[in-house]
């Protein structure tokens, strides 16, 4: 968009609308297929060096024990997430209670609710602004697949169309216990991630007979 100096506003409304439409259509066209779930945690323990493993362990312990959450509550699952934070269920027992108003300070995105295409670019922007490493929990039926609104004209059929999802928490909406369980599953997943890349395998000279 070009800006001339004699305008009253930087952008005029029609231009903004057109730009927004283009952004949404572009995102919609580029998200026909689901993004595969991250599988960095699936590698076998055997490959690991002992020293590196303990370094991994410390890193992952720090990461999984301080999951800070970005704010992304497009719909009703947000209520259950608020209940999760509140004293009755008290997510702070697990070190997952700190809400961050800025996605730049967060490393967990809990997508609580139905996402419309109009909102999708903003959620993607929140995700893109989060620093690595970052994880996503798709909360509720709508977050997983679009739920009952899946065939609607304006609904994103699952968050994994626009961002990679680590843990899916089903339910409509999920109970706070289910969400806490989901976050614990994510913590287990984080514990298995290797922070340091693989070293090349060397033949072990102590083992005789085998190459």
């Amino acid at each position, binding site marked *: 968009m070009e800006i001339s100096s004699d305008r009253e506003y930087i952008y005029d409304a*029609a231009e903004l*609308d*057109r730009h*927004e*439409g*283009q952004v*949404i*259509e572009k995102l919609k066209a580029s998200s026909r297929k689901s993004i595969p779930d991250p599988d960095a945690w699936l590698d076998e323990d055997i490959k690991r060096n002992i020293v590196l493993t303990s370094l991994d362990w410390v890193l992952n312990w720090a990461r999984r024990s301080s999951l800070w959450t970005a704010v992304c509550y497009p719909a009703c699952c947000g209520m259950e997430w608020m209940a999760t934070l509140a004293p009755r269920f008290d997510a702070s027992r697990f070190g997952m209670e700190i809400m961050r108003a800025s996605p730049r300070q967060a490393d967990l995105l809990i997508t609580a609710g139905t996402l419309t*295409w*109009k909102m999708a670019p903003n959620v993607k922007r929140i995700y893109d602004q989060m620093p690595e490493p970052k994880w996503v929990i798709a909360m509720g039926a709508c977050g997983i697949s679009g739920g009952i609104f899946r065939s609607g*004209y*304006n609904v994103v059929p699952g968050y994994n169309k626009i961002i990679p999802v680590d843990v899916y928490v089903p339910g409509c909406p999920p109970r706070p216990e289910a969400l806490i369980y989901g976050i614990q599953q994510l913590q287990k997943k984080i514990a298995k991630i290797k922070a340091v890349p693989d070293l090349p395998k060397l033949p072990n000279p102590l083992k005789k007979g085998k190459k």
Partner: protein
Amino acid sequence: MTAALSAKEIVSQLSARFPGAIEEAGLDSALVKSESLPAAAEYLKTAEGLKYEYLNYITAVDYYDYFEVVYMLTSLEYNRSVTFKVRCYSRDNPSVPSLTGLYQGADWQEREVYDLMGITFEGHPNLKRIFLWEGYNGYPLRKDWNR
């Protein structure tokens, strides 16, 4: 509880004042001709004894052969409400006069109907999509709309 004023009464008043404005009178609603809609609505809003000053909603229905725009007004003074409708028979370019000059609340409601049903409101100051985005293909609440 708000009582619905009998449509008969309204219809007789309206047709006395605007001959030929009423297309059809139902039990609980009146069908107004599209060209006499602004005058009729103004009469309903301002006339002594009616004072329908509150616009509850504007919505639209697709009946395949025609679109029907439905208005509901309430009189806070007399605690009564009335429903009236306008039909537009064109499917390619349906259009109804806007009531934004009369009721401020009509602004977004008419934009919503325009967005989802594709009915143009003549005289609306800012008629553009309100829920969907610029460049969306078609009007999703029409019966023949298909992704």
